[in-house]
């Protein structure tokens, strides 16, 4: 059972949000319930310390209290790392990027009209439902965690094309389907947390075999599914080709 917590100091708006939530839950038969509706952010913090998990927090950004929505979310993240946080705001004052990177909020909803709120809430609850239904163990294997400073992020292993070393120091870059992310680490270190799908192809590259399109032996380049290329050196080319052909055998 997933718990939903609503924190909104305007009584009228809070009641209408709770009403919409209950509708969505019953119509789509989600295994969720409203655990707490509060106007005081401190109540929410108290709740988070009680240990009920998992939680979805719907927080209003402009709370007329000492702490505003973002600070509240910060504190909640400390207590409840895996919870889902959704912000409600009355105008687009804040960039959603702030939400995403600062407290890893799932989404933000603008209080402009009833239909919009309803649709957005449904979207969010649906996503949470999907994520929670996936087998937890599979989830952890299929995800790669990176940290840059104090920002911790996870990427799906299936989206990863390859890792490469960058610059002179302790930096790596992971090339994914539609993104490139830099983080600190060495190929040696991450090799330990990667499974059989990843193979070292070069002094500076670890490649995801699953996403290889084809290998060009002459130019010693590996072409990936998204059009990118990386390199393979003579030392590793045999291993890579073996792993690659193994993958195809498995498919057949």
């Amino acid at each position, binding site marked *: 059972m997933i718990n939903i917590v609503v924190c909104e100091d305007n009584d009228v708006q809070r009641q209408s949000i709770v009403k919409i939530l209950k509708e969505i839950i019953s119509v789509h038969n989600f295994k969720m319930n409203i655990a707490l509706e509060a106007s005081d952010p401190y109540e929410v913090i108290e709740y988070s310390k009680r240990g009920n998990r998992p939680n979805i927090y719907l927080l209003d950004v402009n709370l007329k209290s000492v702490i505003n929505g973002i600070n509240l979310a910060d504190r909640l993240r400390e207590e409840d790392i895996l919870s889902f946080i959704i912000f409600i705001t009355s105008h687009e004052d804040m*960039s959603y*990027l702030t939400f995403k*990177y*600062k407290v890893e909020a799932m989404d933000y909803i603008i209080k402009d009209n009833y239909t919009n709120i309803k649709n957005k809430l449904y979207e969010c609850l649906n996503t949470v439902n999907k994520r929670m239904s996936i087998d937890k163990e599979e989830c952890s294997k299929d995800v790669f965690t990176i940290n840059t400073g104090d920002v911790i992020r996870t990427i799906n292993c299936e989206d990863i094309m390859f890792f490469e070393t960058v610059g002179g*120091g302790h930096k790596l870059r992971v090339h994914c389907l539609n993104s*490139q992310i830099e983080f*600190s680490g060495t190929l040696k270190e991450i090799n330990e947390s990667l499974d059989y799908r990843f193979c070292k192809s070069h002094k500076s590259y670890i490649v995801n075999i699953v996403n290889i399109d084809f290998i060009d032996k002459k130019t010693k380049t590996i072409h990936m599914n998204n059009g990118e290329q990386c390199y393979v050196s003579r030392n590793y080319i045999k291993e890579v080709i073996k792993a690659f052909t193994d993958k195809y055998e498995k498919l057949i």
Partner: protein
Amino acid sequence: MIFYKAFLWEFILISNIYNFRINIVNKKFILGVFFILTLSLKTLDYKYFFVLPMVLIAIQVLLFKVNNNVIENILLVSIIIALFGVNKFIVSKIVWNIPSLIDGLPKSHYKYIIIFRDILVAIVCFIESKFLGNKINKISLTERFKKNHYKFLGTIIVAILNIGIVLYINSTIGSRLGIKKCIKIMSTDIFMFYLLFNFLLLYFLSDLLVKRIQYKQKIKNLSSLNEYTKTIENLYTDINKMKHDYSNIILTISGYLDSSDLDGLKRYFNSNILKYNNSFNKKINRLPLLYSIKLLELKGIVSSKLLRAYYKNIDINISIIEEIDFINMDIMDLCRIIGILLDNAIEACEKHSKPKINFSIIKNRTSILLCVGNNYVEPIGNIHEMFKSGFSTKGSNRGVGLYILEEIVSRYNNVFIETRKEKDEFVQVIIVDNEGADL
């Protein structure tokens, strides 16, 4: 022959010591510079060898084009030349003094000894420069040389190195051509003169160059801040106008209320006030939200780029919650990076029907994130294509922005770029770890 050997040794030295700092394009430039140096060494008659320090200084100053830190450049180049000279000298001395090798060897075989010595010098150069290159890679010379006493010390070392080089050349070329002792004695006076001259010239030159860069930057900052001030003043005028309009509205409403004309009030509200509210919201631009940026150079460049976007009717969304007063990287590099990101965002979203840019600076416990997001119109290509030099969807002379961005970030161990292309937004984030290596 000497010429090609010297060039080979220099090549080994440069590629190892400069490896960490510069990419291929710049390396070619440096090699070209050294080409000139070696060429000049060969063609100089012994009478003109005293011109050498000038050539050295000139080359070191030219290299400023490649690496913005003058002192660091001068030091590195001097180290390279010194290593080159010292290695050849010492190895020669050793090789020619190994009795088992030299005794009983006919003169015709001397050339083999020379080749052996050349290979040995190359190996020694390689080992030394690799070692030095690794060591230098770990130190951030930029920070160190900002302090005055390091600059002073560095200049002395460089001056001594330069003079050492002159002495070496003097003695080898001199002895090879059979110069008389008297010139050798004279050269000690010349030596004192050059020591002083070299030292003074380098010190003042480096000081001057550094000051000039700082001055230029300050002028740029000033003009950016001026624009920012103008925006604030315009805002003040807008607020004044709003005050007057507000009073008028209140008056009109009280008029309707006095005569209990509810229908009239409804009409007035729906036709005038709502529209006014909407248009006013659009008018107040969000630039004053930059007040949280306490780093003036950053504030300047961000405000000037966002102003540019504002005048192109791009909707800008700014979110800076905490005060940003410190960032662990060179502020000029930071401004350059942000400038490139915002320029790219503006260019990319211009063609969209409702262009929008999201800009936020987030201060976490130990890191600062600068995020730029923009909507776009396909086709914009793939991310890996964008980072290649020369890529641009807009004509041939542009497209070096992202490449330069990568080059700047690669110099820092505590700065990371993240680039994501999502369905309706293109996002780039710069993460600066304030507790990173360079502190």
